[in-house]
């Protein structure tokens, strides 16, 4: 995928394919995902349940349980090394030290029997070899960075003494303690109230600039993406269906699924008009439709024979903007006409 070659590419996923071996058969969760995350940007991965977005994110840090998960193919390039080939020792260095991850539910990600300060400090003691004292100071500094008031007192408190939004910030503090180059955020605000979500998103953006890292944001919320992302990749049934800058993908959507998403989401400023749900059901990951996985639900061109037999590849729509649809030009023209 060529693009803006000015920025450094930090992470490059090439043709990643992951399956889960279950009682009912092989679940093909990820089927050929390729994308890049560049330094300093916010890259959003958008999809609904079953799209494979979380599985992709977890595989980067090797967090998938190895049976039942199985990497069928592809490479995860972090700089010049393929993380899929990395030793356990190397992965432990990478996790937290170079790539950090924050999760949806801070309650389960934070250890309830250790203080926040200790958990944050653990990161720098392990990765940077800091002393206990220095680590505590660093933890206080990190808590301040994420906007937690009175960090010197809070550093000795336990997770359950924090509120939901604070816990999420504490988790962010833990993640950035070693100044990772890439921060992966898996649905970081889904479980939060909307006013708290606004706070946490603000923290994330501020942090990104402060420590000069990139953010890979996994979410299903199009509003969040529109607000903070630079580039976005839409996933469906384990494959990317559209990628590009946020303006390109939102304003000139060229894939029927993306269009379906945009048309089915109401907007709080009332500019939406009629809601148009996407017909049918999400596909069973045990038995994906042949050809384009979306064709049974596509309202544009589903009668076309190649949609039913040939898997579309990501083709360029305009520089930096790609869509996996045999008829993306026709689709986007129809869309423009509809909105006029």
């Amino acid at each position, binding site marked *: 995928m060529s693009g803006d070659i000015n920025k450094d590419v930090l992470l490059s996923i090439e043709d990643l394919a992951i399956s889960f071996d279950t009682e009912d058969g092989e679940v093909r969760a990820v089927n050929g995902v390729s994308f890049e995350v560049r330094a300093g940007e916010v890259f959003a991965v958008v999809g*609904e*349940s079953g799209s494979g977005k979380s599985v992709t994110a977890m595989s980067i840090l090797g967090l998938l349980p190895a049976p039942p998960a199985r990497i069928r193919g592809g490479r995860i390039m972090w700089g010049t090394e393929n993380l899929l080939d990395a030793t356990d020792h190397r992965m432990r260095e990478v996790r937290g030290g170079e790539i950090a991850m924050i999760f949806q539910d801070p309650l389960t990600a934070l250890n309830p029997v250790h203080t926040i300060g200790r958990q944050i400090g653990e990161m720098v003691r392990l990765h940077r070899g800091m002393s206990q004292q220095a680590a505590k100071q660093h933890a206080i500094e990190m808590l301040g960075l994420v906007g937690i008031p009175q960090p010197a007192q809070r550093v000795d408190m336990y997770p359950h003494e924090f*509120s*939901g*939004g*604070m816990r999420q910030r504490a988790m962010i503090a833990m993640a950035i303690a070693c100044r990772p180059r890439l921060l992966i955020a898996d649905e970081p605000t889904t479980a939060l*109230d*909307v*006013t*708290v*979500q*606004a*706070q946490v998103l*603000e923290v994330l953006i501020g942090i990104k600039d402060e420590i000069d890292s990139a953010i890979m944001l996994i979410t*299903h*919320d*199009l*509003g*969040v*993406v*529109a*607000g903070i992302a630079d580039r976005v990749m839409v996933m469906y049934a384990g494959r990317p269906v559209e990628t590009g800058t*946020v*303006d390109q993908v*939102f*304003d000139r959507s060229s894939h029927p699924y993306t269009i*379906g*998403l*945009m*048309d*089915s*989401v*109401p*907007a*709080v*400023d*009332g*500019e*939406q*008009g*009629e*809601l*148009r*749900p*996407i017909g049918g*059901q*999400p596909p069973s990951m045990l038995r994906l439709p042949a050809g384009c996985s979306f064709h049974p639900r596509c309202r544009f061109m589903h009668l076309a024979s190649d949609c039913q037999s040939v898997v579309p590849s990501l083709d360029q729509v305009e520089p930096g903007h790609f869509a996996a649809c045999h008829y993306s030009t026709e689709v986007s023209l129809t869309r423009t006409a509809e909105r006029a």
Partner: protein
Amino acid sequence: MSWDRPPPPQDLLVATDVVKEFDVRAGVLQRVTGHVQAVSNINLTVHSGETLGIVGESGCGKSTLGRVLMNLLPATSGSVRFEGREIAGLRERDMRPIRARLQIVFQDPYASLNPRMCIGEIVGEPFLVHRGMNAAAARPEIARLMETVGLSPEHTSRYPHEFSGGQRQRIGIARALALDPSMLILDEPVSALDVSIQAGIVNLLMELQRERSLSYLFIAHDLSVVRHIAHRVGVMYLGKLVEIGPKEQIFSAPRHPYTRALLSAVPVPDPTRERARRRIVLVGDVPSPIDPPSGCRFRTRCWKATEVCATHEPVLVGDESGHAFACHHPEPA
């Protein structure tokens, strides 16, 4: 499709000074140490054929309110009149015939259907309980209901786990519609569904409202959905109703600072419009409902708070258009 004309008012559900308290227990013997007012002096009205949206964040008491209005939870005090009858405090035996007229749809499509009952039995249970009709007798009714919500009647012998989330929610709606109620309480009916499925359920609900003149109390935290479906909207914070009024006024010209902050915090799925918005970011977290702030409960996070906000609790005051708000320093109209 958005709602422009408010339907003719006829007070279907009237809540007056409704309060719901829970006991706080602590210690080895679980003694009662205090009370939490989950719902605090709520006054509202739902008119026939309209949707009243109730929004608020977690802990504001909206779900509790829904259950109290249905008499699933007994109110601590206050009055709830439905179709002219007082229902707060009614015994279950007397409440039963009213249940046919006032039904509820739950949030979680996975938990609201008994996994050991087939769909026909689930949708047919209201007929069994209220009209003594067994499965065979109710079959044509059940088939009709399934079709109404967009499901095939052939699937009545299947079990909930064989259906998707969106389909289960439709089954829940079919069950609620069985006895032809005049009002539905919907407690976050689409929050647990994927975004593209939500639209289908919302459209179904709106279609049903048109066809049957149903009234809805639509409880949600997702303001975007509420804007789409509601005629009037009420905003709750820590058990209190801080603002209520016609939808357009609430969304375009909110008077209460919390409403304004809430609206500005909701992201819009359009980068151009999103960039143009000014966001108010509140400071601090929601206080604990066990020990709410004195006076105005929102003052600890409000950028306009003054001394009077701590000493005097603001009262809900309305104008002729039905727009009411409780604030000492309301936003300009």
